[in-house]
């Protein structure tokens, strides 16, 4: 019988990640990776001056 492991949140990363695994016999047999956050930067960028796009895209990630 496989056992389900959910790790949420995954720490020591940037952002919010959830990992779900099915473990059988001490081995992972299936896994799902799920991003848990959406900010809509692409939507915000529409209609803007291309010269300032980097101000927004840069802030997608601060690491």
């Amino acid at each position, binding site marked *: 019988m496989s056992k389900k492991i959910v*790790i949420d949140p995954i720490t020591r*990363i940037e952002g919010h990640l959830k990992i779900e695994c099915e473990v059988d016999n001490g081995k992972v047999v299936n896994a799902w990776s799920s991003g848990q956050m959406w*900010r809509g930067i692409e939507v915000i960028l529409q209609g803007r001056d291309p010269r300032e796009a980097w101000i927004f895209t840069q802030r*997608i990630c601060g690491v």
Partner: protein
Amino acid sequence: MGAHGIHDHIVHFYHLCALDWVDIVSALKADPKAAASLAEKLSTWPKNSRHEMKAAQDRLKTFVNSGQLGIFASGYWGHKAMKLPPEVNLLAATHYLQALDYQQRINKVVAILGSKTPHIQNLAVGGVANPINPDSQSAMNMERLYYVKTLIDEIGDFIKNVYMIDVAAVGAIYADWTTYGAGVTNYLCVPDMPLDTAGTKFELPGGYIANGDVSSFKAITSFKDDYFKENVKESIKHSWYKGDWNRHPWEEETVPNITEYDRKRKYSWIKAPTFKGKPAQVGPLANVLCMFAAGHKPTVKYTTGMLDTVNAVLSMLGSSTRVSVQSLHSTIGRIAGRAIRCAVLHDSLVSQWQALIDNIGKGDYATYNEPVFPKGEQMGFGFHEAPRGMLSHWVVIQDGKIKNYQCVVPSTWNAAPRNSEDAKGPYEAALIGNPVSDPEKPLEILRTIHSFDPCLACAIHMVDTNNKKEIVKVRAF
């Protein structure tokens, strides 16, 4: 850029990922003298003395004794999967503290050029905002340039004498991890550090490797590379966006459609990108393997050096296991790849600095080309080999205003959910076969996930412009 990459790799290894492998509490039991002599065998790093070790150990003791463990309180200390002897743990812990210092130093390079970090603010579409004028006190002048150079040199010592060695040592002890976590072995990376303004010559090569077969490497050669341009697609079958399509970034739309978490249907905000219809792994390992395949000399040198050091440590430990390039297709391989890339980037940094100085010497102070946005629809893309892997931005500009903008970032590739063909993303695939000794403390899963250095919101530090023209980054790194 290089400096940023190096910083990122060091922070990741020591502060984000090392705690999966290093038992800090165990370090308290170590003998500083033994740790020091071990360290001296491995490298010539002058800060490996017994006193350094003792000081670090005392610092940790005090901290642990205070009873307030803070972020360390929830660690997996004493976990079965922690295999390092106390001395190595102490060595790593000492370097954890030293790395805090060195990451700051390399980061200062970024700060000098970028004005602050993170979120450097020296970019401008068409160039950089850093004026160069050796005869001005308000521009990039000798003082600034040599501050940068000094910092580059200092960090070089650390990378070569500490980081590389530590990774080799940990890698050797955890050699069994070379068999886990390969996952998706289609590797994708892009060339970087362009040597000309047109973006046709690069210091660091990039390309695509299918199925872990280094000989299948096909290079991406320019900023306008069609092979790259035509083969990127993203699927949202399992992502919380409206519809179910598999499109080229220029044709994408972004309409959120939030549903319940359902593993069979939609379960992530991340889209599933594919290259030639297949998921691909990106990141330092992909980069190193591609550069290795392309015969990039520094990469070959550092990769071989790393493998040799691991094998040396293995023989010192009396183990018969030996590692090869094939061993890199693994969880620990990704960590090693990151260290190798770090060293390669450092070499590149040195040569880029020299190139900058040469240009200034020739009186070339140009840092900016004014962008022009013609009327009508313009489509463009740009890419960069970021610390966490290949990143590309795709933009459609209509009459000087952005019509569509899509970022296909490293973690999108790696943390992707299943794609339109229901093929697993790299994280998902890499976890298959991973051991889990204690389901309550799934340290091993974290090891594999962390080896990718996930960054969900994700790393972008460059912007492409219109007309398929990439920013010229040469001069300010």
